[in-house]
């Protein structure tokens, strides 16, 4: 079944039904979205970047926090 999901303004075509708006659900959309068969130039670009990256972080990351912590460590 094909449904249209509105995720805070973004219109994504999905093959899976929608239930809740939770973080978990967003991850589902992400997977579904990113595994689309026809890939646009933009997704091809991102795909090729992802290929260069080793281990994608599993947990949520606070980039700025981590960066500043690292700077602190470096200069202590």
């Amino acid at each position, binding site marked *: 079944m094909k449904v249209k999901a509105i995720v805070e303004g973004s219109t994504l075509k999905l093959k899976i039904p929608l239930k809740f708006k939770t973080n978990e659900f967003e991850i589902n959309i992400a997977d579904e979205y990113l595994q689309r068969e026809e890939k646009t130039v933009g997704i091809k670009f991102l795909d090729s970047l992802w290929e*260069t*990256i080793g*281990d994608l972080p599993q947990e949520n*990351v606070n980039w700025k926090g981590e960066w500043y912590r690292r700077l602190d460590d470096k200069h202590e």
Partner: protein
Amino acid sequence: MISMNNFLIDVNVLLDAIFKRDVKSVVVLEKLVDLGRGLYITASMIPTLDYFLKKHKADKNKFKDIFFGKFKVITSTGKEGADAIGFMDGEDALIALSFKRVCPRGVIVTKDSSFESFGLTVYTPVKLLPFLEDSTPIKDRQIPMLDLQAEYRHMLEDIDHAILNTVAETKYILGPQVKEFEEKIAEYIGVKHCIGVSSGTEALVLSLRALAIKLKGQEYFDRSDEIITTPFTFTATGDAILRSGATPVFIDIDPLTYNIDSKKIRAYLARNSSHVVGILPVHLYGQSCEMDEIMAIAGEHNLFVVEDVAQSFGGMWNGKKLGSIGNAGTFSFFPSKNLGVFGDGGMISTNDDKLAKLMRMLLKHGGKDKYNVAHIGYNARLDTLQAAILLAKFKYIDEFNEKRRKTAEIYNKELSGINGIVLPLNHELSTESDNLYHVYHQYTIRVLNGRNDQLQTHLKERGVSTMVYYPVPLHKMKVFEGKMKIFEGLENSENASKEVISLPMEPLQKDEDIAYVIKSIHEYFKN
């Protein structure tokens, strides 16, 4: 829809997309790439990016190649750095100040609120998405003839680096970049010598002066010496003939190509050949003159040929680059030219060693050095800084000329069939010449029935810029009064000057903008 063209992606959004942490960041980036929008980071963001790439064991070389194919990196100046300290968040202030200099109407995509005090548009990915998906027509669209800002941004890193390096090196006069440029272009054009000069106008004057010295053994031509040229050109072409001491003979153009009519050159020479010393054909709008015929005529009458290539850098005739066919070729690097600098600049090409030597003398006061002055010279050197910029921009010229040709193809296809305009002759398809490579410095149409003013106004009201090159043919200008010869009537030039309009022609123009120009022209002719 609002017209948003340039986006700085803040590091948090960028990392979220690159490390696939947040779907909205991914979608925003995908859409921006798909829409072909300008994407930027600043150099100050690189250490953070570098850290996370290293941490996750990315293949950094591969990443670099792919990433910098889409993202431009903006340099921050020391002054911006110092100013940034005065703000709450110095790091973000530095990003915003530098981005604003390059893209005053740019958009910052971020999850931080600290960017809001710089007069730039700031969106989170979530807020931005609906705008990117909105397909309602853009309001207040402005389409310039040429977009030099977009071109600068496109070549940002190369140009910034070239400028800063050259300034720091301090070899401002005839520095190594001038020589490097001359050698590179000589190879590109296929000539023995290229000589950088201060403008296209000086390139013409120096060429003619060097020819006078070589051929006549005198500093200037005599007024009785005639040089054949077109009246449908920029003033400098005819003016240079006067400045070389000779008399311009204006011969009419072919109404289809707007270039000098070689049949008429023949007709003039059949009757008055004794005083003619040379021919100065102008490859107008990016299209070559009929060079086989012009060279044949010159051979028969022992005339020199100086090609005015100001508008046709990279253009070709029968596989030969323009500027490599006559005794000399003169180029302009005025900012609006296909290859343009950030000010004035020009160049001469030649295969003639003696002429090259004379030209090099003339451009620096007329001597081998400052204290051995043999000729009445000029100060007409190409600045090292402009040469450095040319070297940076030269990389893009073939791609840009190809893009101009594509745009012309679209105009040709979509405007054909409108009654009341004449499209540029697609000379490449005619049987007269094989292998003519038009570089469309201008895409110029002819508007019939006296409606060109009206069409220009109609387009202007819709934000579409147009220009008339040239509204006054040279023989109508006061400067040439009593100093020129005119062969027969010059009706074709006079009619052209009343009817031509050049349309926007920008290598980085978006297809939707070209479509908008076309639609606006169709609208006018429907009424």
